[in-house]
């Protein structure tokens, strides 16, 4: 221990690096070289890496225990390298520089998680080495599985939210790859895609949460968030986004007032809700749960490891990790608890009617995850987290047991759905005793049979749901708008409601799990007619793969699907089919079952508050110390209260559930269930269709996005491209087409144009133009007009202010006229020009001599104002004369 402490000091705990790098290395080697290395080498690589990581996790855990004697938070850090740094202006215009390191840390919470991940992970690796033995993608499978372990470890060991996010998306990626592991079936590939995209919705929430944290707190690492979390206690205006709602004026007044009323929420609530959206996605809470049941398309060990024991509990881990932030918002916690409780109940009702054993387990996983969130939501983080632990054991055991059963069923039934249908099973107890016994142990735990692990963890959650609630500060004030916000207070009835939902779920859980066990292991075998020493007529002698031990017909069947399209499906059932005796699985598969079964029974003693043995609880206490300050829970003194709660859990939930299932399915052989289904067909269909959530999403969100995308495509093609490219091209083309008509190359057309052109020019020349250049001097009153000269022009003027033309009606050669006006005098002046063809043109103007402006006249002597009324000379005019036109006095 001394040596270890020296080797791995708390501030530079490089053991974490080792724990992380081994699975990654194994993933790389298996993925790239696995095909060449062969099956044994892949197995060795995968298993040894995970086992070494497990040993590392155990050492870490022991060291944590060694340090944690004084009841304070112990955290070992390992800072690998600087990742990046975020800089910008945050809240209150303070410059934020948020360094993000690739840093890891381990404390009681993450240490426990790491232990579960590597421990259960190793068992499942061992199990897979047999279960997947015959699969052609064996190496690929192990590479993904190792990569998953790596990502999951990054998730729990990461010291900041972005590093957690790396693991968070990494496990999502592995989940995507493993769900679609048998990719040649579209259904599997779709399930993988659905899982990834649904998870991405959650990841979006996490991204938003990170942004808000950077803005308000200025830190993303656990310590920094915890220290700066008080900055989250300020109101944030969430509506309207701008200063006013733009459409408000168009609406009736009352409505406008309602929608433009500013609404505030505390920053903590926003952050927590965004974080919870992320948790909902990963942990498949109601709303984003749709991917998990479909995810059962993956190989069964994957369902056990990823979709039951570890990955799906990441959301709960996140809540526990940031418990200090979550308790700051009672509203967000109410949402967490509410959604958790509802998910628990909702999934349990669906599990009642499922026949696919993996689907039953999937919905029970949903339901148990709901429990965990219920526990965390009411502030009982420790209870919620303990359920993560026990659930990892019993659910992994259940899934692996189910895998063992499916494996046995594959001896004769190759269709995925039929081999997982519990109507084809029954009576397997006598053929597969090891699987049956361990399965029963896990069943006892999940059903809440007293003294099993599930009993203790579930009992604790139920108890806390009733008595514990989250209280934040009564008011929150400050923020940019200086408002005071009253914090949300949990209503009185809420705890009761949560408790009732939890209790009801417990009854249903006991019932459907008993139904599952009875369906698989009791009664008569319904899969096929058992013929000892039966030989598969379809087996090709060359393949030789049909020995019973370690054969995974599941994968092999997939291979055959593609190569032999004619592979016929036989309807299972005693009357249709004959087959061999169902067989127990090999030791690689049963050993994990025994270990997990044992843990399911006895792990409860780690945290049995009921009988005052809670080493785990004490170990975790410092992690939740900050959070528990804001949680209001009555004193532990009422011992009897606890016992009453436990008794209720046993006698109202577990016992009736199990008893009812026994009565229905063993005593009455399932007839009451069938009758109930017949009596309420719509309810039954509703539950069988999983509350039709998928259909609802399809009809709403998916269809909306789909048609929106169609609209965008149309808009892009016809409006954007249409206006910018096609319309502009059309305009140019049209202009070109018109102009092209003038460039035909036909001489006749050209000469015609020439003719018309000459005609036009000639006409212009022939017509006279009465253009006059004016030269006015208002100050002196001298006005001078000079007419533009032209070919053969003759002029007559009228400038003397008297009727009739000056000097008679005859046209003369006078081109200039000068006259004097008095102040305020008005005179009409006229000019007529006669062209050579005796056509005349006229110019007429009324002239007024304005009063001299005294002020302006005093400052600047007025200059003669020159105006040109005839800037254009007639075309064809001799240039020499045009240049001298303004002062062509000589022509007078």
């Amino acid at each position: 221990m001394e040596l270890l402490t020296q080797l791995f000091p708390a501030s530079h705990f490089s053991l974490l690096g080792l724990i992380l790098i081994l699975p990654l290395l194994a993933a790389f080697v298996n993925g790239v070289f696995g095909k060449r290395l062969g099956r044994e080498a892949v197995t060795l690589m995968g298993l040894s890496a995970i086992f070494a990581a497990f040993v590392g996790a155990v050492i870490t855990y022991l060291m944590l225990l060694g340090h944690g004697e004084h009841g304070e938070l112990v955290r070992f850090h390992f800072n690998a390298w600087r990742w990046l740094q975020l800089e910008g202006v945050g809240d209150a215009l303070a410059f934020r520089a948020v360094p993000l390191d690739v840093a890891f840390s381990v404390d009681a919470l993450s240490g426990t998680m790491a232990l579960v991940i590597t421990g259960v992970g190793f068992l499942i690796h061992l199990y897979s080495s047999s279960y997947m033995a015959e699969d052609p993608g064996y190496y690929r499978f192990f590479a993904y599985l190792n990569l998953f372990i790596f990502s999951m470890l990054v998730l729990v060991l990461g010291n900041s939210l972005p590093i957690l996010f790396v693991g968070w998306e990494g496990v999502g990626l592995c989940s995507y790859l493993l769900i679609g592991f048998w990719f040649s079936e579209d259904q599997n590939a779709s399930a993988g895609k659905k899982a990834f995209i649904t998870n991405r919705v959650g990841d979006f929430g996490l991204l938003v949460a990170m942004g808000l944290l950077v803005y308000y707190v200025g830190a993303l690492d656990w310590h920094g968030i915890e220290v700066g979390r008080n900055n989250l206690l300020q109101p944030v205006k969430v509506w309207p986004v701008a200063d006013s709602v733009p459409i408000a004026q168009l609406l009736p007044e009352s409505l406008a007032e309602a929608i433009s009323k500013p609404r505030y929420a505390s920053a903590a609530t926003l952050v927590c809700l965004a974080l919870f959206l992320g948790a909902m996605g990963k942990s498949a809470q109601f709303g984003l749960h749709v991917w998990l049941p479909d995810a059962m398309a993956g190989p069964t060990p994957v369902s056990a490891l990823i979709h039951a024991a570890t990955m799906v509990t990441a959301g709960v881990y996140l809540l526990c990790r940031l418990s200090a932030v979550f308790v700051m918002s009672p509203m967000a916690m109410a949402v967490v608890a509410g959604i958790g409780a509802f998910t628990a109940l909702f999934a349990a009702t669906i599990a009642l009617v499922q026949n696919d054993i993996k689907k039953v387990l999937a919905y029970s996983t949903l339901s148990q995850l709901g429990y965990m969130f219920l526990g965390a939501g009411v502030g009982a983080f420790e209870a919620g987290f303990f359920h993560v632990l026990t659930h990892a054991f019993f659910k992994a055991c259940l899934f692996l047991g189910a895998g063992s059963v499916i494996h046995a069923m594959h001896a004769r039934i190759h269709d995925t759905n039929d081999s997982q249908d519990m109507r084809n099973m029954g009576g397997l107890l006598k053929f597969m005793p090891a699987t049956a016994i361990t399965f029963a142990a896990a069943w006892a735990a999940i059903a809440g049979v007293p003294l099993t692990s599930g009993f203790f963890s579930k009992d604790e959650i139920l108890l806390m749901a009733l008595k514990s609630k989250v209280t934040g500060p009564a008011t929150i004030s400050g923020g940019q708008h200086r408002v005071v916000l009253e914090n949300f207070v949990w209503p009185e009835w809420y705890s009761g409601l949560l408790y009732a939902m939890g209790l009801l779920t417990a009854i249903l859980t006991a019932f459907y799990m008993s139904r599952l066990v009875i369906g698989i292991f009791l009664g008569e075998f319904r899969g096929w007619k058992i013929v000892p020493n039966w030989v598969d007529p379809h087996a090709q002698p060359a393949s030789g793969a049909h020995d019973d031990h370690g054969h995974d017909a599941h994968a092999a069947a997939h291979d055959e699907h593609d190569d032999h399209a004619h592979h016929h499906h036989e309807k299972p059932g005693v009357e249709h089919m004959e087959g061999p005796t169902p067989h127990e699985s090999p030791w690689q598969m049963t050993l994990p079952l025994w270990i997990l079964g044992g843990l399911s029974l006895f792990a409860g003693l780690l945290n049995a508050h009921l009988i005052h043995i809670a080493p785990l609880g004490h170990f975790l206490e410092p992690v939740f110390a900050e959070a528990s300050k804001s949680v209001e829970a009555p004193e532990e003194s009422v011992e009897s209260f606890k016992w009453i709660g436990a008794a209720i859990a046993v006698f109202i939930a577990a016992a009736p559930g199990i008893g009812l299932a026994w009565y229905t399915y063993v005593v009455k052989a399932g007839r009451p269930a069938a009758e109930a289904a017949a009596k309420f067909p719509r309810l039954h269909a509703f539950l069988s269709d999983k509350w039709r959530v998928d259909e609802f999403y399809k009809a709403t969100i998916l269809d909306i996005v789909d048609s929106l995308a169609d609209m965008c495509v149309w808009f892009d093609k016809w409006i954007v491209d249409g206006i910018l490219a096609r319309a502009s091209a059309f305009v140019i083309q049209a202009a070109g087409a018109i102009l092209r008509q003038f460039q035909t190359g036909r001489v006749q057309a050209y000469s015609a144009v020439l003719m018309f052109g000459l005609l036009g020019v000639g006409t212009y020349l022939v017509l006279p133009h009465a253009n006059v250049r004016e030269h006015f001097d208002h100050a002196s009153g001298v006005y001078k007009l000079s007419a533009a000269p032209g070919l053969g022009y003759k002029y007559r003027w009228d400038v003397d202010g008297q009727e009739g033309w000056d000097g008679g009606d005859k046209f003369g050669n006078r081109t200039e006229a000068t006259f004097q006006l008095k102040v305020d005098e008005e005179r009409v002046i006229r000019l007529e020009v006669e062209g050579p063809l005796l056509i005349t043109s006229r110019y007429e103007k009324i002239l007024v001599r304005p009063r001299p402006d005294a002020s302006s006249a005093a400052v600047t002597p007025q200059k003669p104002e020159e105006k040109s009324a005839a800037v254009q000379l007639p075309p064809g005019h001799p240039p020499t004369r045009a240049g001298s036109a303004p002062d062509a006095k000589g022509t007078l």
Partner: protein
Amino acid sequence: MNPLARAFFEIAPYLLTFAVFALVPGRNQRLPLRLGMGAVAALLHVFVTCTWSGAPSLEESATSWPNLLSFLTFLPLVAAVFLLFLPRQSPGLLKNFTLAVLAIDFVASLSLLGVSAESGWRYQVVADWIPSLGIRYHVAVDGLSLWMVLLTTFTTPIAAIVAFGSIRERIKDLCFSLLMLHGAMLGAFISLDLFLFFVFWELMLIPMLILIGVYGGVDRIKAAYKFFLYTMVGSMMMLAAILYMVWTHKTLAGYITFDYLALSKLVLPKTAAYFCFAGFALAFLIKVPVFPFHTWLPDAHVQAPTGGSVLLAAVLLKLGTYGYLRFCMGMLGGPAGVVSTPLASVVIALGIIYGALIAWKQDDVKRLVAYSSVAHMGFIMLGLFAANPAGVKGAILQMINHGVSTGALFLLVGVIYDRRHTRMVGEFGGLAKVMPIYTSLFILVTMSSVGVPGTNGFVGEFMVIMGTFLGFEHLGPFAHFQAILASTGVILAALYMLSVVQKVFFGPLSNPKNKHLPDMNARELFAISPLVGLIFIIGFFPSLFLDRMGPSVEAVLDRYREHRQEFTAQEENSEARLMGRRGGPLESGYPEAPKSDAEKTAQASKNQAEEKAQ
């Protein structure tokens, strides 16, 4: 320890990397590929260790060889001319010559990594070009253009390898175009004289036009024209703006210059500033492209040959974003700041979201990738509009990322096109069965494009989104709202990319034509290996890139802020004026007023006197 042993231990890690990655290719691959992949991996390893902050960095080589940038730019241009004298009949010679030139260029450009991270111009060369018009040959790099230059020298050889793989005729023209394009792109990134920039900017158009118009698909002529005309419209507007600014500067300062440093001192009256900004912004936003000018991009991509698409996506589009950052924000920060909020909304709603939705509906894989480019470029522009260190650094990193990821995607699409001569999604399905390596690589690059953490895509997107969250200073009260909207792009990216992955690679292998498709060959594997390497290097060690651009980004942002303040402070109808000189490293190479002949001789005699005195 004797020096030989020490030297061995120093290179041992690289040898190990070399050995491991030389083993990566499967059994049936031949030696050259092994050596190539090992070399690529070892080179990347060297890159990481040499650029690691704290590691002994290369000595500043700017003093040792100041003409490096000119060499980089003019080597391919001169080589392109030289190529014209090589025989058309020996395509092998032409190809090898081109590759050799590009390789020399790439290796030479690596010495740029030796520059220190401080802000200021590196490898600056100033020389008179057309003195009577004040046009100078002024080139330099800083933390922004450094990465663009490296991206170019890194991508073009890959594009050349890809192009040589799929194009069989008119090799000479192809080589000529590639070299010209390469030189022109580099020139545009390093020019600090607006006239010089404009020359290179226009010079890029022609080789690209040839690449699309000669080697493209069925509708290549139409696509080439569309590309050309769109860009040309923008260029003309930019030219008008440049000339106006040069003229205004002349009236104020008394001498004529096209220099970026001088013109960025200009504070124009509001209306004129808006018009000039519009001219520049139009040119760059068309190039990026930003809605509604984006429709040339899918057409050009679909018709262009694979190599052309890779270059177009990886480098040419970056000229738009780089130009916006350098010229719009650097010279016309005032109007750029005013329009940044509405433009940010445009790139979010009509780039990131709209582009993603359209991408989702495409049947042609290349078209899909092109529309995904619109979405990705939207992220880059958003980072620039946020205009804080996180956003801008994220944007520049995202430029590199987009070059790497989208380049790789186009390369991969080209692989399947070469085999089947179709890119329609409906033609495929279940390819994972026959082409496992191809599938793995495609999924990997998809993850990078979607932005899964650990790959490069995430770091860029993350920084841009965080930058937007911290962008109140320039984006105003909508920053959070915009950041949240932009984050939805993350969901949509997964939607469209995974849909196409599922349709092409998963499900039953139904089309008999796909039953016997060969997996990727050595050339293709070699071409994509550096891209794959970079995907992870940027994903895990973004600091290698971010640290080097940090000071330059801050300098640019300081100037931007200053411009904004000057612009908003000025009164209505005020006259154009020049900002005061600030000095400092960013001002080196500032054009001085040309001296009269008398002054020149006086100066010369003074110098001589000084020399004598020494």
